[in-house]
């Protein structure tokens, strides 16, 4: 059994599950958060900086504080990033899909500049922030593959998202808002508050996916580490449709597709876009609805 590739695929799936939970919550509210790439990058960047700075000392209490602060910082920064789009939607009737995408497109080069500039590690030759200390890295599950504890956390996130949407008043109201905004207004739901809170949660979860990627896989914020992660998580959420629990198989599916198409491209000297093409074909087949008779 090729443990390395199986573990890599599952590890990627975990990141898709966390970010996909965010994408799915946004979809349920009737909005599409297309800013996943930038939000993952921002969450990863913030957590990498916080972990590298705060966990320098050997103090275990300080390490715990560093992890908590990094997770919170990643969540809050990315929640605010998505929240800005929600605010524009509420007060200026701007399209959330469009503004979230634009915000992400603006954020990526900004972080690129920070990574290659003031926050770049000065001790090695990479375009990346300093490596985070070993004591704050997520424990490995299947060495030598990158699979780590974030996989278990990701399963918990999917279950929590399901519970939130299906077993709480907020979740039910959000689903109704997404399905029929007019009805939700008629029912007296606080539509603006629901839109804003779902955007904040969606952004925050994307940020947590970035933090998980740093703490479990990369251990540093490489310039461009997010590449494709946001879109694949979004695809997984689309495949899962209305059910966060279905995000688990759909993310695993996307993780395996990505990992093995990349492997195929690498070992058969195909262009690097072959993996995206394979994914696109499969997603097209999945999304294709036969004409009703």
């Amino acid at each position, binding site marked *: *059994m*090729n*443990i*390395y*590739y*199986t573990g*890599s*695929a599952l590890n990627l799936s975990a990141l898709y599950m966390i970010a996909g939970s965010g994408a799915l919550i946004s979809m349920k509210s009737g909005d599409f958060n297309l800013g996943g790439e930038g939000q993952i990058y921002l969450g990863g960047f913030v957590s990498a900086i916080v972990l590298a700075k705060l966990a320098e000392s050997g103090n275990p209490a300080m390490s715990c504080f560093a992890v908590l602060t990094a997770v919170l910082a990643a969540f809050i920064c990315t929640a605010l990033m998505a929240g800005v789009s929600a605010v524009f939607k509420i007060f200026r009737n701007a399209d959330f899909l469009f503004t979230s995408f634009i915000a992400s497109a603006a954020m990526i080069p900004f972080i*690129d*500049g920070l990574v*290659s*500039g003031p926050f*770049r590690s*000065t*001790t*090695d*030759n*990479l*375009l*990346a922030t300093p490596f985070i200390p070993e004591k704050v890295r997520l424990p490995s599950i299947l*060495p*030598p*593959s*990158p699979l780590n504890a974030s996989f278990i956390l990701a399963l918990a996130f999917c279950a929590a998202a399901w519970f939130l949407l299906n077993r709480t008043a907020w979740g039910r109201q959000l689903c109704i808002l997404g399905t029929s905004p007019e009805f939700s207004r008629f029912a007296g739901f606080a539509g603006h508050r629901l839109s804003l809170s779902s955007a904040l949660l969606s952004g925050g979860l994307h940020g947590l996916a970035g933090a998980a990627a740093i703490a479990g896989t*990369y251990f540093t914020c*490489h*310039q*461009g*580490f997010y*590449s494709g992660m946001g879109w694949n998580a979004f695809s997984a959420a689309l495949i899962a449709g209305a059910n966060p629990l279905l995000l688990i198989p759909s993310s695993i*599916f996307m993780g*395996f*597709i990505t990992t*093995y198409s990349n*492997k195929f491209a*690498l*070992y058969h*000297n195909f262009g*690097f876009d072959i993996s995206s093409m394979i994914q696109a074909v*499969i997603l097209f*087949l*999945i999304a294709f609805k*036969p004409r009703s008779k």
Partner: protein
Amino acid sequence: MKKIILFTTIFAAILSMGFAKAKKTDKTSIAVFVPGIIDDSPVYNMLVQGVKAAVEEKNQNLSKKEKVNLFIMEAGTNQAEWGAKITALCAEQKYDVIISSNPSLPDLVEPILKSFPKQKFILMDATKEGNQNIHTICYNQYEQSYLTGYIGGLMSKSHKLALIAAQEYPVMNNIILPYFEKGAKAANADSTVDFRIVGNWYDATKGAEIADAVAKKGVDVILPICGGASQGVITSAVNNGIYVTWFDDNGFAKAPGTIISSSVMKQKEMSYNVTKEFIEGNTPWGTAKMVGIKEGFVDFVQDDPNYIKAVPADIREKMKNLLDDIRSGKTEIK
């Protein structure tokens, strides 16, 4: 239902690929890890050519069963993926050695060796001493930078030079930039060097913008070390009528008349040597070697017609004298 069947079939097919086990044969297997794109980079092109030449030479008189296996992996420019891709190569457990070239690789390779303690690496253009799984060779960039700065200083009329780098890194900050400046000042004490960063290794548009900006400030000689972005610097230099000094390979043909020098590293010869050394079992594991002008692996191109055309005879004479002094040991750049 059809959708579920399709989904399951594809997934099962992919999953089954994960169970394919790599086979380690008795034959010698070599992998070349290219941290970039071969066609984009003369340095990686030379690396691949050199390894290929050594393997082909070895395979000439061998039967199919005895032939040395060679696999070349092109990893692309996203540094975030390099670690995973090197790990993937190691996980195959069928390559006796992985040969590569990049200053950042020792940092990436060392943690991976904890999981694959038998894997061997030969890394060029890098320095790492004391690890029995790694042998490194670096080129004397003190000499390369000094020579480039020296001719830049001699050719500049404004005495304003610029170095446009893709990113900052220890070799850039501690060797290339200071020795480029040192060489320029040795040619003319009034020389200054403006140091600029592109922020990546591919953005030719940004490279051109930075070159335009420094040209407006009076800079008339630029050294670009920014991969694909260098093409933008050359285009800008041609448009602004200023000079470019070139690093690592012979670049005169890229812009005759604009490119005034090429300080080269003999990567093809070196990669051929290290591959041959490995095949013969003579690799000095755990050591770091530095090679320069004296050893014949760093050079300054003097016989290119474009060099003779672009650079006045008195300056060519000064360059020749400096090179002769370095070769003879009379002058040491350190």
